[in-house]
């Protein structure tokens, strides 16, 4: 099974673990690994296009420059800018914060590609069926509103009721389209509500359209994720990474290295799973 096809709970646990460590560790070694692996998985998974990569690069550069410009803590001045010291410590901290931001942004982009709306609904439905229903209806209406907006504005334009060339006319025309859209959708919503009530809404438990079972594979993966995260957290705990007033790091002790190794495995877990599937597919093909 490919990583994207796993139970939404497993996927959510995985991203919670990875993002948790990325955002809360502030450990330079782990952040380097995080940045490299998240770029790697975005490139291999094809979740980021050229524009997205450029945006991430811009975020990295801005975030890295901002900290030394505004924070002047630290004992080692590199140079002075307008009589304010630019310190080595603040620069290193800025680089780490920038790495954290960029890695987190890459991971979040992956997450929103994997977590489609029906999966979000599945997760919320467990917590509260009311919210799940409200969410699913709102998502449906968002798509419906777009379709209806097109329909109304096309027909108004075809009737010659507003002219796109004239700014005032165009704005007034849009306002009329919006007004029609709201009236139509609200009236139509009442019909939906009536239909729901006559079919027995609120009389029993709501069932969900998509059925995701928790397979043994899911359970094993969840346990692996949590164990790897715990090992990384132990590694973070035992390695010292202090930035102010003087950089004092102790990253390469045995626990720190074990934690970094665990985090590396955790970071590339989706790549391992998908790679295994790709190899198996090739192998089965060649057997035929």
């Amino acid at each position, binding site marked *: 099974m490919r990583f994207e096809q796993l139970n939404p709970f497993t996927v959510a646990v995985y991203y919670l673990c990875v993002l948790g460590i990325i955002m809360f560790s502030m450990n330079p070694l782990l952040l380097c690994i995080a940045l490299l692996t998240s770029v790697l998985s975005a490139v291999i998974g094809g979740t980021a296009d050229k524009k997205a990569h450029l945006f991430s690069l811009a975020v990295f550069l801005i975030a890295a420059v901002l900290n030394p410009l505004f924070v002047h803590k630290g004992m080692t001045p590199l140079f002075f800018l307008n009589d304010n010291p630019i310190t080595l410590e603040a620069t290193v901290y800025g680089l780490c914060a920038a790495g954290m931001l960029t890695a987190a942004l890459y991971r979040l982009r992956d997450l929103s590609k994997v977590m489609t709306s029906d999966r979000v609904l599945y997760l919320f439905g467990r917590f509260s069926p009311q919210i799940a229903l409200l969410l699913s209806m709102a998502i449906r209406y968002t798509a419906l509103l777009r379709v209806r907006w097109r329909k109304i504005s096309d027909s108004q334009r075809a009737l010659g009721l507003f002219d796109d060339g004239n700014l005032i006319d165009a704005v007034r025309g849009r306002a009329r389209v919006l007004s029609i859209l709201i009236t139509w959708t609200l009236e139509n919503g009442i019909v939906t*509500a009536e239909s729901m009530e006559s079919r027995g809404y609120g009389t029993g438990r709501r069932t969900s359209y998509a059925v995701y079972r928790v397979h043994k594979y899911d359970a094993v993966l969840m346990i692996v994720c949590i164990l790897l995260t715990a090992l990384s957290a132990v590694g973070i705990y035992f390695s010292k990474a202090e930035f102010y007033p003087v950089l004092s790091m102790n990253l390469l002790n045995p626990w720190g290295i074990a934690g970094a190794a665990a985090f590396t495995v955790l970071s590339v877990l989706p790549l391992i799973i998908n790679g295994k599937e790709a190899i198996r597919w090739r192998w089965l093909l060649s057997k035929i």
Partner: protein
Amino acid sequence: MRVIENPRLRAILRYGIPFVLIPALVALSAIVFEGQRYLIISLGIAVLALLLFMTGFEKRNIGARRMVITAIMTALAVFGRFIPLFKPITAICVMTAIYLGAEAGFFCGSLSVLISNIWFGQGPWTPFQMLGFGLIGLIAGYLSRVLLKSNLLLLLYGVIAGVAYSFLMDVWTVLWYAGGFDWKLYTAALLSALPFTALYAVSNVVFLLILRKPVGNKLNRIKIKYGV
């Protein structure tokens, strides 16, 4: 609107969150992290606060009609977030709140953020945005009698909501970036966000002005005609 159906779980959350969980989180941050990990703590508190508000809504089971109309208004707010620069999301939440009640306002605000972030990007900022817009709706619902009467106060509410939202989100920006609160960075963030703050406030006022009459009339009509 009853969100969590199990009465025991609801009671536990309702009294446990403000009196046990939030103090425990704050104490944890003071003792274990020595006040270092503001981000985890603030994220935890935002999620807990969202849960707390949801457990508060338990008076009646919401009718299908009110639910569908709230969903439509939420969809309109999401739809409006695709407009470049000027965002009518606050105006729509406020309108929903003053005509359909505080719970509807809360859900319109928080869920429209959750849904639109599927396109705009989910992240640790989502709970904060949800809380921000949810509170804008909730408070407007509680002030509905005043806001319905006076046009000027409604517009003033729009301005205050825009500025307050920006201030809240900048606290979060600084916490995430610097790991702790820093007044200098906060001021820098506020200053750099100034054009956006002004844009929020202006678009709130503009959209409240435009939408107040027509949308208000439509919602009122639906309320009277179908007895929502």
